[in-house]
């Protein structure tokens, strides 16, 4: 699915021709690799480069929103062997922007990575690509070949004394490899079980060497930031929330897809761009930042603008920018059951609270959904999430807990109804028709 709409295209400028505009010559025609050339030819210092990124207040697009320039500045200068790694393991339910970035414009990510490597002094990089998108992985490999052939990758790039090579590593189906240290373990040929931090990747990363990891969209933004200057980029969004952001809108809208809008765009505007609610039905709830972000009820969401600070103030997270839109046909217990199953299925299994807790949560929610809930179950669920959060190596346990807590918090009556009446508030047929899979009237 190509870009549907945009307010201020940067990342998505190259998407216009769909599958026909991804190759190196198209990218170059759009001004691609100009920034890399400028950096190398002007012998811009890594410090100046990082300062420029800091000015842009680009915050990591992978979910945590950590300032990218600051992250790069953590890399030890002297280390002889360093890596940059791109996180395209996009597995957070609702997120599908990185796939399209690599599909329609892989070279912006490659250029961003090369520039990042120059900034942090890395000679080698990897892009970890989500297992289920093999075709995208193949395209990226092709793009790498093009870049290598054109001298953007390899030894003495563009005649400079800077050398860097980049490879693609293909995942094979594990959400946890999106977590940056799980990802590193996976590149090392192991299970993707996250590492305890500290030490952070900047000190102990891939093969134990200093490593910078960023999300695909973060890297892809780099050439554009350098093109317009950090301040101008910041100015596109709002203070502390620089630039534009891709939002993957899914669920009950008329036009699901990716939308690039400036940070701070009202949610209402985004919803409108996505064609409004499917079948004109009423908005019930939105998960604004990927399935791990707390759900927000319609009224709260309609007041939000799409940026880190506004969504955080409303009690959720901008996360990866995956906006899951749910209308009134959705049973919130069933919705939560599916999410809880996901975290139960995807827990890597090393931490006791996550390994044991994610299954416990799922089983209790499953029971409630299947009419076997007990009055004490909601307190139990809250207690179990409480015992999971903040007690594990990575944030997956918290990610499993947030939906449970927020669904219960905002839609408690629905859960209570299930427990008391052993069935759903919403007519099963209404639920069935909500998906749009069946034509009205068909069985």
């Amino acid at each position, binding site marked *: 699915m190509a870009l549907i709409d945009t307010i201020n295209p940067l990342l998505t400028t190259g998407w216009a021709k769909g599958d026909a505009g991804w190759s190196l010559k198209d990218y170059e025609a759009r001004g691609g690799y100009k920034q890399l050339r400028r950096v190398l030819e002007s012998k811009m210092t890594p410090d100046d480069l990082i300062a420029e990124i800091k000015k842009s207040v680009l915050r990591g697009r992978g979910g945590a929103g950590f300032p990218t320039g600051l992250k790069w500045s953590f890399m030890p200068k002297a280390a002889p062997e360093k890596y940059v790694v791109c996180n395209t393991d996009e597995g957070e339910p609702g997120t599908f922007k990185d796939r399209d970035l690599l599909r329609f414009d892989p070279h912006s990510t490659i250029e961003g990575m090369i520039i990042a490597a120059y900034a942090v002094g890395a000679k080698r990089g990897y892009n970890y690509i989500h297992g289920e998108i093999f075709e995208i992985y193949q395209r990226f490999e092709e793009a790498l070949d093009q870049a290598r052939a054109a001298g953007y990758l390899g030894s003495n790039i563009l005649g400079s004394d800077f050398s860097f090579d980049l490879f693609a590593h293909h995942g094979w189906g594990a959400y946890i490899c999106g977590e940056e240290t799980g990802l590193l373990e996976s590149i090392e040929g192991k299970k993707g079980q996250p590492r305890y931090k*500290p030490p952070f990747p900047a000190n102990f990363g891939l093969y134990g060497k200093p490593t910078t990891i960023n999300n695909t969209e973060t890297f892809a933004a780099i050439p554009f930031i350098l093109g317009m200057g950090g301040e101008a980029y910041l100015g596109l969004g709002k203070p502390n929330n620089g630039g534009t952001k891709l939002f993957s809108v899914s669920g009950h809208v008329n036009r699901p897809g990716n939308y690039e809008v400036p940070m701070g765009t009202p949610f209402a505007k985004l919803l409108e761009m996505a064609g409004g609610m499917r079948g004109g039905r009423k908005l019930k709830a939105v998960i604004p930042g990927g399935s791990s972000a707390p759900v927000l009820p319609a009224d709260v969401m309609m007041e939000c603008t799409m940026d880190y600070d506004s969504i955080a103030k409303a009690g959720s997270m901008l996360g990866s920018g995956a906006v899951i839109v749910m209308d009134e046909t959705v049973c919130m217990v069933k919705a939560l059951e599916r999410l809880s199953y996901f975290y*139960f299925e995807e827990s890597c299994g*090393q931490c006791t609270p996550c*390994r*044991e807790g*994610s299954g*416990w949560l799922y*089983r209790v929610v499953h029971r409630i959904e299947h009419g076997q809930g007990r009055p004490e179950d909601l307190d139990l669920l809250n207690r179990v999430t409480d015992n*999971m959060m903040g*007690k594990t190596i990575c944030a997956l346990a918290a990610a499993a807990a947030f939906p449970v807590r927020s669904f219960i918090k905002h839609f408690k009556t629905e859960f209570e109804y299930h427990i008391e009446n052993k069935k759903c508030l919403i007519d099963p047929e209404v639920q069935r028709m909500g998906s749009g899979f069946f034509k009205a009237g068909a069985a």
Partner: protein
Amino acid sequence: MVEIEIDGKTLQVAEGSTIIEAAHQLGTYIPHFCYHKKLSIAANCRMCLVQVEKAPKPMPACATIVTNGMKVFTHSDLAVKAQKAVMEFLLINHPLDCPICDQGGECQLQDLAVGYGESASQYEEEKRVVPDKDLGPLVSTDMTRCINCTRCIRFTAEIAGFMELGQSYRGERAEVMPFIGKTVDTELSGNIIDLCPVGALTSKPFRFSARTWELSRRKSVSPHDGLGSNLIVQTKHDKVMRVLPLENEEINECWLTDKERFSYQGLNSVERLTKPMVKQGGEWKEVAWNVALDYAAHALRDVAKTHGGAAIGGLVSPHATLEEMYLAQKLLRGLGSESIDFRLRHSDFSADAKRKGIPWLGMKIADIGGLDRVLVVGSFLRKDHPLVAQRLRQAAKRGAKVSVLHSADDDLLIKLQARAIAAPSQMPAVLAQIVKAVCQIKGVASDSTFAGVTVSAEAQAIAQSLASGNNTGILLGNFAQQHPQAASLHALGGQLAAALGGGFGFLGEAANSVGGYVAKAVPASSGLNAAAMIKDPRQAYVVVAAEPELDCADGAQALAALRQAAVTVVLTSFKSQAMLDYAAVLLPVSPFSETSGTFINTEGRVQSFYAAAKPLGETRPAWKVLRVLGNLLDLSGFDFNTSEDVRAEVLRGQPDFVAGLDNGISGVALNLSASVGGLERVADVPIHFADPLVRRSTALQQAADSAAPTARMNAVTLAKLGVAANDKVKVGAGATASVTLPAQLDAGLPDGVIRIAAAHVDTLALGAMSSILSVEKV
């Protein structure tokens, strides 16, 4: 050093310490499962969560590095709440049937659940069931109890050196398992039983045979290899039920080899001799002790009278205690014989008059880990000295460069820097090349004998590695000590160490390899050594705790010698068919667990122990038996009341480490051109066949390391002989002796070499461990 505060107590700890290490220093216990001081940090169980001032979340004490001024609270509400939460999670899928669990009473989970668990869980969903795994004859599994702490996995990968276990699948389905169809087979595998904090991995031989509270515990010392690992021997009604490591950082750390852990089964073997026996008119009779002792004393005195004391030979096991060895040599000498020896598997005794002192490790065991360059010469290291191999493995991970000179290239599970694999006859020459190369690099003069020596690439690589170090160690293993040119290897090893300015020593073959010299259980100049005593048969033999047919360098010759003797008095814990055949008197003596005694380990450390159990049946401690024999023979100096009295006489007040240890040697005429025609035998002593006790452990005899002997050759040698792997071959020694064995390809052997295990009944007929053999396809 940084200063921190734990529960209000201030302390100084080394920079880089974790909170749990700091707490340990203070004696504060922090509950934990996955943490183990010898393993990498996993931080996965989350049991050790504590509160750290200013941290918003509880922190894992095992993984959190202290910082100056840090304030830690191990018992605050936040900490206790987190710990209780984790305990609840651990228990939801764990069976709560401690009374039927083999770990019951010694389970960390059970112990901690009492302190941190709630009496009832709210978990009412179905519990996880995990299929059990077959890990082989030593370790039993009950995987539903596993809490996924991954200690066992980390042990196999990090300490034993090969990842035999893993955690497969993920999330709640995560399962600890070996590769499908595989078992745990390293020589250290039993340690995972100790490491498992719950009842998932337990001892198969011990399983359900006793409850921990029924067991009495005694400290003891391992009677096997030269390390003298410290043991806890557990008994029930005077039967040894289990052996566990007693932690001693300077020796075995917290580990035990499987041999040390499971050999106790031999103590309860059906072959235990429990009554004195005398052969009369070809018939064996069980007799009273006084009858047997009188008989033995008379017989020995008769031989001495008729043929002279020199007609009596004494063969003492190197696994015998210091006291036993001392009294045995005193007895022999009292009878007028100087022929006494404990070095049963040696074949070159030419160093005897040339040594400056007692050969020993040349350093402390604990120093091995600090070496930065090591050359191991002639050692089946992983099997002969598993815990030394383990120390070198850790050293190699810290950057030490380990090289090997040997006649076989078994995988040590250590990353090697360089290796030279040569036929036995070539080993002195290759070692000389290394010495020469090192001397060249160091710019020091080398022995004039080396003038014609050409340095090979392998030797050069080893020399270069050694010469680049600051703290080198040259270690000679069992194979080097048993080598027909052992004296040359000794002398060359010494020269090499001198050129390097580093350490040099011998990896003690047996529990009392140093003790044997201290006890003077070696021949004086007029006497015969172990090899000579059987080559030149005696009228009478006194055998102490050995099975010469399996424990001597040439078992066939030993057997022949004992058979022809007029009198063979055997002090033994076990009887065998061979023994019944050659002995005249069998005196049941205590194995290590039923006597007090002393072993002096390879670093010269004196370690005494008490009996852990009462002697079985009419068994008596050997030192007492020897004392009575001395009395009956009216020999002077046999008035001892206790084994401590004996020890006091031998050691004369050397409490911890013995004096006189010195690996110096002089006057060895090096013969570097030794070349032999034919197939040279390389004989290893398989780990579970090395001594009479371990040979009788039924579980160990089923382990992978106890596979039947084969005739191993490299591809070139096989091809030359027209033999394929798995073909049956007739291996001949001399004109008459032969055995039939399956041929096996061993790419790690040099050309012209055939490797056949010794100490095994199947290969006994082949005679000497070092010999020239012929091979014919059958």
